């Protein structure tokens, strides 16, 4: 007999549903919002309305809906045959291990939490651990795409943190590191550094950080997928021949076509 799968995520009751031991009807509905329910579902910290408002701010600060941004372009391509759902699935399937999207924020949250503990929050010591060198070619949380001097979303994230008015040790730590790495190594921080550390400050563990960032990004994936599916554009379904350059093998005959035995 198979052992039952143990889960505490919740269950369907009679007249109510239970999420992590809480009644949807009596404990959650009207008392808390989406972000608290999401946090509960992934085993994160309970979020009061203030923390939820903070996550709202972080979410909106992250909005970058340009359909040319790579994962969103994947969504457009796959949704171009008319299914927004397929476009969503494609974007989601592409996220694991990708260096864009929610995945890097897991590594960032892990790394900066580790370095914060290791250096007791001393940014100078942290820079010596993080700086690019023989063992580290790339510093997680640094590097922006395109001709931008700064990642414009960082100012909004930092404003959201300031407006929350609560302790933000990891964001301040990240900011101090960013200042030094910019000055010493010309490394430009990206939004991943600040959103990951802001969520760590709220109390999320690294994997949970990635899942919350996924939820942040979902609105632009949904919007792009919906628009592509609505348009069903032939220009996406098949590129104009002039837009593709073949650089593979030139015509050759197989051994069977040449009438040769092939072992």
């Amino acid at each position, binding site marked *: 007999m*198979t052992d*039952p*799968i*143990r*889960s*505490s*995520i*919740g*269950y369907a009751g009679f007249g109510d549903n*239970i999420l*992590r*031991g809480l009644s949807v009807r009596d404990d959650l509905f009207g008392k808390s919002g989406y972000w608290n329910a999401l946090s509960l579902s992934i085993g994160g910290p309970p979020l009061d309305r203030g923390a939820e408002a903070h996550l709202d701010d972080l979410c909106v600060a992250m909005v970058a809906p*340009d359909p*040319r*941004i790579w994962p969103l372009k994947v969504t457009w391509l796959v949704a171009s045959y008319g*299914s927004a*759902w*397929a476009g969503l*699935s494609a974007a989601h*399937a592409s996220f694991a291990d990708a260096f864009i999207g929610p995945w890097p924020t897991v590594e960032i949250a892990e790394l900066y939490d580790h370095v914060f503990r290791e250096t007791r929050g001393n940014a100078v010591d942290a820079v010596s651990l993080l700086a690019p060198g023989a063992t580290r070619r790339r510093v997680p949380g640094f590097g922006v*795409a*395109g*001709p*931008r001097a700064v990642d414009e979303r960082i100012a909004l994230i930092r404003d959201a943190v300031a407006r929350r008015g609560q302790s933000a040790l990891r964001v301040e730590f990240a900011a101090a590191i960013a200042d030094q790495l910019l000055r010493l190594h010309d490394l430009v921080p990206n939004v991943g550094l600040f959103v990951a550390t802001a969520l760590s400050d709220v109390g999320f563990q690294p994997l949970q950080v990635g899942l919350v960032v996924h939820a942040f990004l979902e609105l632009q994936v949904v919007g792009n997928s919906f628009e592509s599916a609505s348009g069903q554009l032939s220009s996406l379904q098949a*590129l104009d*021949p*002039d*837009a*593709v*350059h*073949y*650089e*593979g*093998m*030139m*015509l*050759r*005959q*197989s*051994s*069977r*076509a040449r009438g040769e*035995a*092939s*072992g």
Partner: protein
Amino acid sequence: MPPSVPRTGSPIDHMPTPDRLSAKVVRPGARPLLHGYDLQRDLSVNYDGGELALIALSGEAPSEIQSSRFSVTSAFAAGVSAAHAPVHAALLARRYGSRDSGVASVAAIGLTELARFELDGQAELLTWLAAGGESDPPASAAPASDDDAAASDRLREALRSRGCYDRRLDAELGLLPAVVTSLHACGLTQRWQLEAAFTWARLPVAIAEAMAHDRGDLKTYPINVPPFSLGE
């Protein structure tokens, strides 16, 4: 709502970027080449569907021995049933009314995950194969049961009957490690090639099982299989 802001420049407009997409495996157009082979005039008449998959994955038209080996091994890789999560998921999607392409998508995602998971578990075997497979195989590749050993023997027998046995299969291997070893001997030595070969072999099987279930039939679906224990 405030009025829309006027369109400004975008950093993406100014990114240094090529103006054409490169194609590296298939020549686009009405007469496509696959790794340089004419699909319509050469591969279509000289190779079967399985061989076409092997050419796509390996980049070269296979030898007769490689073709036979891939054909036999694919059959042993293909045996996923309703008991396996990707097929279970796909048939469940079918039962709750997903469109056909949605059922196939669920199967495909599940099967790529299954292949990744299985090959993660064969890391020691892959290292052994990359080193030539001359020494004793890792203990993790040994058969997990008598049934597993018997299935490996059936693979060996089938390969011998087609004259495409690889001597590395002399080692004591469970079925999955034996299939991986045989695919490796087909020239599929990279992780992505092996993952793709497993997915290719299994996808039609999974879709067929899913589509054999009645669309919309949730009443006969065993919702409590496997059992869950829910609560704090």
